[in-house]
């Protein structure tokens, strides 16, 4: 039987041309957490964040919820951003919150690419999708696909 299962579900909602709202859920046999955060698309800066702990291991864990606010102003594009998230949010707060933020960060450019391809397909259903993706990647040197 499966003795440990961990799932992440990350959704990306484009609030407008400048901002994407991520909702991230982490659920496993031990923990259940959720993060909602708004990110500025141009530079990856976290503009707002909320977190909810639904299942955790001890009564001190929820003290990590207010520490989440230190993520506001961090950029998901700056050098070493994953280490910074783990240090500031994970070590001082909750590593599971940090893991969800990191996963949302990994989705930033993939979500932009999905949005761009969706829009292009509306105009051209016969679009060569492979060529579109490679052109988009080549035209956006800032991206970090993961």
């Amino acid at each position: 039987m499966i003795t440990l299962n961990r799932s992440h579900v990350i959704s990306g909602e484009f609030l407008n041309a400048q901002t994407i709202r991520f909702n991230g859920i982490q659920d496993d046999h031990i923990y259940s957490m959720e993060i909602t955060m708004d990110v500025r698309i141009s530079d990856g800066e976290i503009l707002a964040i909320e977190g909810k702990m639904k299942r955790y291991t001890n009564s001190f864990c929820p003290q990590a919820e207010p520490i989440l606010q230190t993520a506001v102003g961090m950029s998901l594009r700056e050098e070493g951003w994953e280490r910074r998230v783990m240090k500031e949010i994970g070590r001082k707060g909750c590593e599971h919150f940090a893991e969800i933020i990191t996963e949302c960060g990994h989705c930033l450019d993939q979500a932009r690419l999905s949005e761009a391809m969706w829009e292009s397909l509306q105009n051209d259903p016969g679009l060569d999708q492979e060529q579109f993706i490679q052109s988009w990647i080549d035209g956006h040197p800032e991206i970090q696909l993961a």
Partner: protein
Amino acid sequence: MTIRFLRNKVVEVEPQSDGSLSVSWRLSDDLLKAEVNLKVQLPDLEIVDAEAELERHVPRAWHSAGELIKKMKGVRIGSGLRKIVQGLLGGPDGCALLAHAVLESANAVILNFTRPVVQAGEKLEGEEKLESIREMVKANPRLIRSCVAFQDDSPIMQGLDL
């Protein structure tokens, strides 16, 4: 408002009859479908088999993922894994997705061993529960200052002479 992007990821640990652990890591989003399977041998948590398959719209730079993942054979899950994985799967010729998959799979293996410990602690209350958490910290010093619950001023850490 409809969303324009959705990613589902799951990692599962399944003990095998030969004593090893099978770890299945899978990802599916609007553009990418990926699967990484590891076989982990106990007791030293050595990765003895590793396979990866990427489908849907795979960036050109990741086309060698199926070969790259084989570099993980012989690596042990333990301290220093992050640096080892970065060295083997990271960099311009690597595949960041595979590196994440391996690290998340390794984390799942650790959580797999943590689950029974956490479950045993659930039967306890009050000071008895605190004491059991303190014992866990003594056995796993890496937990110290690893999160808000294990900071120096936490009631868990107070009374611990480490």
